[in-house]
């Protein structure tokens, strides 16, 4: 399904990284130098960040959201919290965040159970809420603490995830956001209760090099000048960029520095481009998130690196 929403603006994005880091050298010590070299070449990860024991997604989200709320706290009417790793099954963490962030009791608070496509799912949901004229701002927040939910003996996934919290403020502006979304129920990626993350790499790979490029191409117009992908795997991202006809420099990656940050991956890429890689001014981008579900959601949207506030914060414990 393709949908276009008018008059929207990404006002601010903030991400929080824990201060514990695992490097490729640590990975090489665990699995051997040869596997580490191949992992680095194919998957592309050089380091990942981990929340220490006892730190939850809501802890990271509170820190990420704080700088976004100074001006607009009273104008937030919807709170969307994206996570697959809540620390409680009930109540919804979005309700606890309404309290902890000091938002009004009028707020609609929803948890969205999505992973790597989660930011895009929430962005599309936010756009729907913004159709109603009484909604002034939507706060999207979330992330996952997955580093303690992987099989430490599985070289393919042990070093994959960073625990990152994010917050993004959506308001009214002059941007047209065009979305395309897809869902194909599958257990190719699962996070069972009381068990570790599981992924059928072949099925996931086939999905990402067939469905995702097709969706991106359905949104591509001549003014699109960059493709911002969920940071899943460098090899896969290169294939998607190639299939969609983008030059490598139009498909920026930061998986080397941050690993796969689940639903925080795209917010973290945006913040990294603005804060560390010198992206300035206006761009027309296609953002694409894909993963567990299987779910894939992409959007063509204007980005303004001059007026949108982007910020990466380190969470000190």
């Amino acid at each position, binding site marked *: 399904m393709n949908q276009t929403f008018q008059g929207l603006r990404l006002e601010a994005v903030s991400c929080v990284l824990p201060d514990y880091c695992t490097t490729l050298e640590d990975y090489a010590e665990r699995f051997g130098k040869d596997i580490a070299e191949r992992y680095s070449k194919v*998957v592309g990860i050089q380091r990942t960040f981990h929340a220490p024991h006892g730190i939850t997604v809501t802890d990271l989200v509170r820190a990420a959201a704080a700088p976004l709320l100074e001006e607009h706290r009273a104008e937030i009417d919807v709170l969307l919290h994206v996570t697959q790793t809540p620390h409680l099954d009930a109540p919804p963490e979005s309700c606890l965040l309404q309290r902890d962030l000091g938002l009004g009791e009028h707020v609609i608070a929803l948890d969205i159970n999505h992973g790597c496509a989660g930011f895009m799912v929430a962005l599309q949901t936010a756009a729907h809420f913004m159709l109603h004229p009484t909604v002034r701002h939507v706060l999207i927040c979330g992330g996952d603490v997955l580093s303690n939910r992987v099989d430490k003996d599985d070289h393919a996934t042990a070093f994959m995830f960073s625990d990152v919290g994010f917050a993004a403020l959506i308001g009214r502006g002059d941007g047209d956001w065009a979305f395309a979304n897809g869902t194909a129920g599958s257990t190719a990626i699962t996070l069972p209760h009381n068990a570790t993350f599981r992924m059928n*790499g072949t099925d996931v790979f086939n999905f990402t090099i067939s469905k995702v490029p097709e969706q991106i191409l359905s949104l591509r117009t001549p003014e699109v000048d960059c493709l911002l992908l969920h940071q899943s795997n460098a*090899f896969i991202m290169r294939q998607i960029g190639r299939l969609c006809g983008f030059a490598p420099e139009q498909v920026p990656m930061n998986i080397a520095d941050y690993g796969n940050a689940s639903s925080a991956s795209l917010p973290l890429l945006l913040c990294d481009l603005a804060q560390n890689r010198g992206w300035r001014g206006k761009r027309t981008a296609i953002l694409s998130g894909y993963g567990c579900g299987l779910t894939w959601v992409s959007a063509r949207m204007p980005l303004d690196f001059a007026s949108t506030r982007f910020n990466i914060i380190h969470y000190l414990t």
Partner: protein
Amino acid sequence: MNDTDILAELADILAAPVPLTPETPLEPPLTWDSMALLAYLAFLRFRFNKLLPGVSCKDFHTVADLLAHTHA
């Protein structure tokens, strides 16, 4: 692509230090692991527009098994 070209691509995927033949087993000194499998799947997708759902490394034993999907 002829078989010589395909073998050259497979040699790159398998990080092969020796020339490949169809009989070469997928074992050291070749590197046949989940990452090589991804590269092989991408090779099939781009060169032959083919997807192989549900396969794993253990479904392939020799270079001939890899070649088979380039001909089928």
